[in-house]
């Protein structure tokens, strides 16, 4: 379909009748500034072709010229399906629709009203809507080939349009059968698989495979559960059989036990009777034995009593003999004790005499010692008196010497140094200063004396001793040099003061000091301050005198108290001597020597020691003899007691024997005869008992007890077994009512059936998936092949437009470009990733390619482009114009633009100045 002429009246901003035409079957350029109504033309075109003239509503009312009630009107001449038509539609106010056909050189109306609406839609290959205004998907190929403003970068292809395109492009891959097959396959695929290709889960839309797998697993679980139960019942049955066998065995054993018990109890009754007879024999034997034992005991007791008498007699004799021996020993011991005591007394007297002699010798020795001590004390007192005199002399000497002490001489030394220092200071006060700059110095000099100020010191500067200079040296700071007569005068006064002090302090020692003015040879002048030596010598002499006194004072007993003490000691020693002489008159002779006296004393001590040793020996002997005497006395007493005891025992035994014999009143012979007779009777009783066998009653009783115990255990076992049997029988009997095998059969059949259905469903699902994917794959390949001309055209022109940047353009199965492949790379970039301008240009190429192919294969198509190059650079604009020129040979192109200069290169295009046309219409 192409357009021949378009007239719009009172449509939005286009007031009056605006008419464009005749339009070229090739290129058309409709230009005008913004707001002149270019988009309004396209809107009127679409509404004229596809909307019912009776459309009302707000959307349609927006088409009215603002502020009027005029009905928007459109008039289109076009060619479609080999015919030439004119449609005239008016909306809202007096709405109408009229369709005319060109026949025989004139327009002939052949339809109107709603019928005309539908016929027009049919001619334009669009779709009607039941309600409301149409949308691009109703506009037939217009949806693809007519790019509205702002939507040139999009390319949506509706189902009907796709069919049209496919039919036109001979893309018959989706014919009716193909669609039906695909729909059938996809529906089956969707039943089992999610869009991601996974089996559908979830409770609502679960895939049959998964649902059957779940059911199959549940059925298997049921089967397993029943099998477990059956095994349990089988085991219970087996246990029951065993338990019954065991129960029977126990019953049999119990019966045996009971039988045996009866037999043993009968046997016990018999044995009990036999046991009574045996007991009588045992009694007889016991009595015989008792008789014999009684007699035998009497005989043995009498014999024992006789033996005891004999033994007592022997013991009495022995004790008497021992008493006599002990008395003799006691007398001997007493005699020996008395002799020892006499010896001890003699030795004691000897000791006393020796000690007396020793005391005399000791007094002589003491007297000699006291005499020596008195003589020594006299000598010491004499020496002490001499030392006390020497100390007094030394003190007198020191007191008479006029010399400075150590502290005084130290103070004088210090004063002497101060005088010297002051003299040197006074001498130094008369100085001179000379400054010799190495280079000229900028100074501000103030010289109070001779020199005049100078700005620059470039020669030596000398300052006298009296005066002051202040130098300010640049970069160094300030130097003040001062000297003056007032300082020297002060120093001299200080020196004089010091020298006066010196003289005052040394005046006391002048006369005593050798070589000093006061000393012999001097004229009484004061000591020169520079000469300290005479005073030093005087101080040395004083130090020596002090040293000597100290030495004397440090000697012992050099004080008068010491002397008095020593003299008292002499007097005490003499008194002691006199006392000793009074005790020992022999001392009065005084003819004793110390050595002789000490020898006599030692001899006396030795004699005393020897006498004491002998006395000790005698005393020990007395003790020994006393012990012996005590022991002998004890033995004698003990022997006396033994003798009495044995005599008493002899009497007792004799009485006992007599008493025993009086018991039975028999003689010894009679008694022996009776004993013999009793022994004979006992032997006979034993023989009778031995001949009779003891019945095994106790053993039998034990056996019976064992059997009874066994019977009780068996009864208990039977009780337990009975309980077990009851339980097992109930389990087994109840199992029959469960019909487990029948349930198992049904469950197994169900599980088997489910497994088979699951296998079938799995096979089906896998087959559907395989078919789905194979179908997709083959469809893709087919589509690729059929789209090849479109692709090649687009790819070629896209290369011209944007350069060799992209090697391939991909289309989706809805025939829209889905992406591009960058040159040299095996990846696809989605179309959305391209810039808006590039995407817009790509869609322009697709529209042109589709229109061209459609035009070549059949009817020429109209492409409407609303400012398609507004986002292209100059180079691309040039390429695009070239492409548009080529497209104009196969399709009608209507370019709407606000910038006609951009299309200067579009030679041969029919151009329409919309602004001028609209103005003319208004005017």
């Amino acid at each position: 379909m192409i357009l021949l002429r378009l007239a719009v009246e009172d449509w939005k901003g286009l007031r009056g009748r605006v008419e464009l035409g005749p339009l070229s079957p090739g290129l058309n350029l409709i230009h005008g500034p913004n707001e002149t109504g270019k988009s309004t033309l396209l809107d009127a075109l679409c509404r004229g072709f596809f909307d019912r003239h009776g459309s009302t509503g707000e959307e349609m009312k927006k088409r009215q010229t603002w502020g009027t009630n005029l009905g928007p009107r459109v008039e289109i001449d076009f060619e479609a399906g080999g015919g030439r038509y004119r449609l005239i539609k008016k909306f809202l106010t007096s709405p109408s629709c009229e369709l005319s056909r060109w026949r025989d050189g004139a327009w002939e109306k052949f339809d109107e009203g709603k019928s005309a609406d539908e016929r027009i839609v049919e001619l334009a290959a669009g779709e009607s809507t039941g309600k409301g205004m149409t949308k691009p998907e109703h506009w037939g190929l217009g949806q693809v080939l007519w790019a509205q403003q702002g939507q040139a970068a999009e390319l949506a292809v509706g189902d009907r349009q796709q069919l049209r395109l496919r039919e036109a492009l001979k893309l018959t891959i989706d014919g009716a059968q193909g669609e039906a097959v695909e729909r059938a396959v996809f529906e089956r695929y969707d039943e089992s698989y999610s869009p991601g290709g996974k089996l559908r889960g979830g409770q609502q839309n679960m895939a049959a495979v998964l649902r059957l797998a779940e059911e199959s697993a549940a059925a298997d679980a049921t089967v397993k559960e029943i099998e477990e139960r059956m095994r349990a019942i089988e085991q219970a049955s087996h246990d029951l059989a065993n338990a019954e066998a065991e129960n029977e065995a126990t019953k049999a054993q119990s019966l045996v036990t009971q039988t045996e018990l009866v037999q043993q109890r009968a046997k016990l009754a018999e044995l009990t009777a036999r046991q009574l007879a045996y007991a009588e024999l045992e009694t007889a034997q016991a009595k015989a034995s008792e008789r014999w034992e009684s007699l035998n005991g009497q005989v043995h007791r009498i014999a024992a009593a006789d033996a005891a008498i004999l033994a007592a007699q022997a013991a009495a004799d022995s004790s008497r003999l021992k008493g006599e021996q002990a008395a003799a020993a006691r007398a001997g011991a007493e005699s020996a004790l008395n002799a020892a005591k006499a010896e001890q007394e003699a030795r004691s007297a000897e000791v006393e005499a020796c000690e007396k002699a020793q005391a005399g010798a000791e007094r002589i020795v003491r007297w000699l010692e006291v005499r020596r001590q008195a003589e020594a004390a006299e000598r010491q007192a004499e020496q002490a008196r001499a030392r006390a005199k020497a100390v007094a002399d030394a003190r007198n000497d020191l007191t008479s010497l006029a010399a400075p002490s150590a502290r005084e001489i130290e103070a004088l030394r210090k004063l002497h140094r101060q005088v010297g220092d002051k003299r040197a200071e006074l001498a130094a006060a008369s100085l001179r200063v000379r400054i010799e700059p190495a280079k000229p110095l900028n100074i501000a000099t103030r010289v109070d004396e001779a020199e005049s100020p100078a700005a620059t010191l470039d020669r030596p500067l000398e300052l006298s001793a009296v005066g002051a200079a202040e130098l300010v040296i640049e970069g160094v700071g300030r130097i003040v040099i001062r000297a003056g007569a007032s300082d020297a005068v002060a120093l001299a006064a200080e020196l004089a003061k010091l020298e006066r002090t010196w003289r005052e302090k040394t005046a006391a020692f002048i006369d005593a000091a050798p070589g000093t003015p006061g000393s012999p040879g001097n004229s009484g002048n004061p000591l020169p301050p520079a000469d300290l030596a005479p005073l030093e010598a005087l101080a040395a002499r004083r130090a020596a005198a002090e040293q000597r006194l100290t030495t004397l004072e440090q000697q012992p007993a050099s004080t008068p108290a010491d002397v008095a003490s020593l003299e008292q000691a002499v007097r005490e020693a003499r008194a002691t001597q006199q006392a000793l002489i009074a005790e020992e008159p022999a001392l009065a002779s005084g003819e004793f020597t110390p050595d002789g006296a000490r020898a006599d004393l030692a001899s006396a001590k030795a004699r005393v020691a020897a006498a004491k040793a002998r006395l000790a020996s005698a005393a020990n002997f007395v003790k020994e003899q006393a012990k012996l005497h005590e022991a002998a006395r004890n033995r004698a007493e003990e022997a006396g007691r033994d003798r009495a005891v044995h005599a008493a025992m002899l009497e007792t035994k004799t009485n006992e024997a007599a008493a025993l014999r009086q018991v039975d009143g028999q003689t010894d012979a009679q008694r022996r005869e009776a004993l013999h007779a009793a022994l004979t009777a006992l032997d006979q009783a034993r023989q009778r008992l031995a001949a009779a066998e003891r019945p095994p009653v106790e053993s039998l009783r034990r056996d019976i007890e064992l059997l009874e115990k066994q019977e009780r255990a068996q009864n208990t076992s039977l009780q337990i077994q009975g309980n077990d049997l009851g339980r097992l029988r109930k389990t087994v009997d109840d199992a029959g009512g469960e019909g487990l095998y029948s349930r198992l059969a049904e469950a197994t059949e169900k599980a088997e059936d489910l497994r088979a259905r699951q296998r079938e469903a799995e096979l089906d699902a896998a087959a559907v998936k395989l078919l789905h994917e194979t179908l997709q794959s083959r469809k893709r390949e087919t589509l690729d092949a059929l789209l090849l001309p479109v692709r090649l055209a687009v790819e070629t022109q896209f290369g011209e437009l944007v350069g060799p940047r992209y090697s391939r353009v991909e289309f989706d199965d809805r025939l829209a470009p889905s992406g591009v492949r960058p040159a040299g790379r095996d990846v696809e970039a989605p179309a959305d990733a391209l810039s808006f301008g590039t995407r817009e240009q790509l869609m322009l190429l697709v529209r042109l390619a589709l229109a061209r192919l459609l035009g070549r294969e059949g009817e020429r198509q109209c492409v409407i482009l609303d400012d398609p190059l507004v986002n292209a650079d100059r180079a691309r604009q040039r390429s695009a114009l070239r492409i548009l020129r080529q497209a104009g040979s196969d399709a009608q192109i209507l370019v709407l633009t606000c910038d006609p200069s951009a299309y200067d290169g579009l030679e041969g295009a029919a151009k329409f100045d919309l602004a001028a046309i609209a103005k003319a219409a208004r005017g």
Partner: protein
Amino acid sequence: MLRLLHTADWQMGMMATGLGPAAARVRAARLDSLRNLLALAADREAQAILVAGDLFEDNQVGSTVVEGVVGLLNDATRVPIHIIPGNHDPFTRDSVYRRPVWSQLRGHIKVHTTFEPVRLAADALLFPCPLDRKFGMDDPTTAIPVRNGGAELRVGLAHGTMRIRPGVGDDYFPIALDAADRRGLDYLALGHWHSTLAADGVGAGAASARACYSGTHETTRFGERDSGNAVLVTLNRPGEPPAIETLRTGVLRWTDLEIDLDRQPIADAARTLREWPEAERTLLRLTLRGALPPQASAELLALRDLARERFVHCAIDESQIRPADTGDEIFTTPHLRQTAEALRALASGAAPGIAPAPGQTAPAASPEVARRALQILHQAAWSARA
């Protein structure tokens, strides 16, 4: 003369896997065939019915099953019936024969749980050999006392394995091949094998056979040969060979059928099934082989439906069907044709696999899956065309 109806292995309440909903029907049929058997016993004037074990499939069968059998035996006949427990229903502590329902038996039915012989007639003794456990390797007939003179007919009733012919292997409770002779029996009624077999190895009816398996009275599975029978045994005099006659008792037919689609169009196969006699009593195992053209896919579907409607049960093995090399003209779009070609190659094993579509994982493209996929494609295309 003594006439006995020998039967065994009723396997009441048996499991029937792989049959789907038909399993219940198969179980119910075993009672129907028992009715047939009891009617035959009356018709042929049998003096006793001998049931050689395995009356029930298991000791734990449901009460309904047991009550159904007991009720039928009680009500449907007055012919004396002698039953021994077999290895499926041994006389264990949980034996089905211990259930209270057996106390309702009338006097003509006797369940033998011991080896004690009973009198079948004035001149005939029955030596029952019941089993009291499921497994064992002892010969139950050794409990039968050997003949020691006498002019009575001696009949044994046992359940076990007699190697009557090659292929009948060793199993539990082996019975000596010459057990009848050893024990001096005129006839040994055996149970365990489900096919009707006589001791001479040539089948029932042989004049010399003294031991015979009656086989199950109703076939239990596909492939079970010569089952669904009972045998009528006539004994004239001691020492004389018995006369054995096989009687059909079974209700259901278990049939295997193969159809080669290369030789027979699927339409003919459908006709065969449609005209099948007694399909309502037949379980069919149908194997289809050969090439199936695309246009026949719908017919295959119809065949399936037909089989499932008409037969008690029909299992169709389609694994040997291969897609025909021709017939792609039904596809009017090229990519459908190409899809069919690709699947066909895969189904025949000629193609290693199908390249997955972008974003899709590789399918599990086994030949079996490919065949099924091709069938789906054919059906869809055929439906679309229709």
